[in-house]
């Protein structure tokens, strides 16, 4: 089934909660209202004409307030069907702060970890998730790095994070740690002592 047909099926069932079909992109997408995504996902998997049994990718993109765009965060779901071999893209538009979306973990098991990663990197909350905590970064990390307004902190538990000042400092202090590859004391220097 082609993208327009898929979108029409979804829009027919969910009305205005599935909107804004972008047809002229390389991979056309449908925009889904945030609170409806779990139901749309369940329908997409269960309906025999759609049969989207595979969630290929769940990612987020951060669009801060740049000139022509509305500031938002987009959650992008790439769905694929092994039986019908068609793919479709669902997008959810969220505000940049304090966003929260129902989890699709009960539909596709892999969404558990994908959502944890999105939470870790962007700060989007997922309601109904069984175990929402950081997955890639340490648990006491502050902030969400893949947001466009991320600034590297100076230190993390005593270790340097930002490189430039540290390297300049150490070099200027004349610090020489360890041994360079080509300077070594000659053999048997101690024998002559």
């Amino acid at each position, binding site marked *: 089934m082609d993208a327009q047909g898929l979108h029409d099926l979804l829009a027919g069932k969910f009305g205005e909660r599935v909107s804004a079909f972008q047809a002229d992109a390389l991979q056309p997408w449908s925009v889904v209202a945030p609170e409806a995504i779990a139901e749309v996902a369940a329908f997409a998997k269960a309906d025999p004409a759609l049969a989207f049994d595979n969630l290929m990718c769940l990612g987020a993109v951060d669009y801060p307030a740049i000139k022509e765009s509305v500031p938002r965060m987009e959650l992008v779901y790439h769905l694929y069907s092994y039986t019908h071999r068609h793919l479709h893209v669902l997008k959810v538009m969220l505000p940049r702060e304090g966003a929260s979306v129902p989890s699709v973990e009960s539909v596709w098991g892999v969404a558990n970890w994908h959502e944890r990663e999105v939470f870790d990197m962007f700060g989007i909350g997922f309601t109904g998730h069984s175990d929402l905590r950081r997955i890639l970064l340490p648990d006491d990390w502050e902030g969400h790095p893949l947001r466009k307004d991320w600034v590297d902190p100076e230190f993390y538990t005593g270790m340097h*994070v930002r490189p430039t000042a*540290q390297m300049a400092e150490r070099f200027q202090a004349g610090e020489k740690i360890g041994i360079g590859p080509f300077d070594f004391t000659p053999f048997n220097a101690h024998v002559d002592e």
Partner: protein
Amino acid sequence: MTNSITGPIQNRFSETSLVFTTVDNVVNWARKSSLWPMTFGLACCAIEMMATGASRYDWDRFGMIPRGTPRQSDLMIVAGTVTLKMATRVKRLFEQMPEPKYVISMGSCSNNGGPYWKHGYHVLKGVDEVVPVDVYVPGCPPRPEALLYGVMKLQERIQEDHVLRRRAASTGSLAGASMAIEAIK
């Protein structure tokens, strides 16, 4: 190799079957010829370290038998990117190793952060922030021959170690351990 053995070792085999040398020489020779690394393979450099251990670039001929546990090893080859999450574990494993212990930092990621130095918010810019390093092997990843060269450099270093008299500049012996505490803090 010849300098360090036949030089300080006066060989009287032909006459009286006696060999004279210093304790330092023998102990250092034994230590450097059987460096047991704890394979601390983290990332891509770990694959090159495995290739060094495989049959083409065999490191067994240097006496290096990889041990899985830090308690039975005397060399830690930090091969790969050290992340901030992992850095505390690196420090802990280094502390678990018995003296004398040495560290080779393999690859540019553990030397100074490598290709991730600029935007890597989670990458430790050089493992020498948490453990004292004896030899740095550059490369991304360094060839197995480069790692073996680094090991040979370390062996030269070990040969000049002193069992009784501690030279302040050498790491790896007790003097190194006291320096390590400053470096880790």
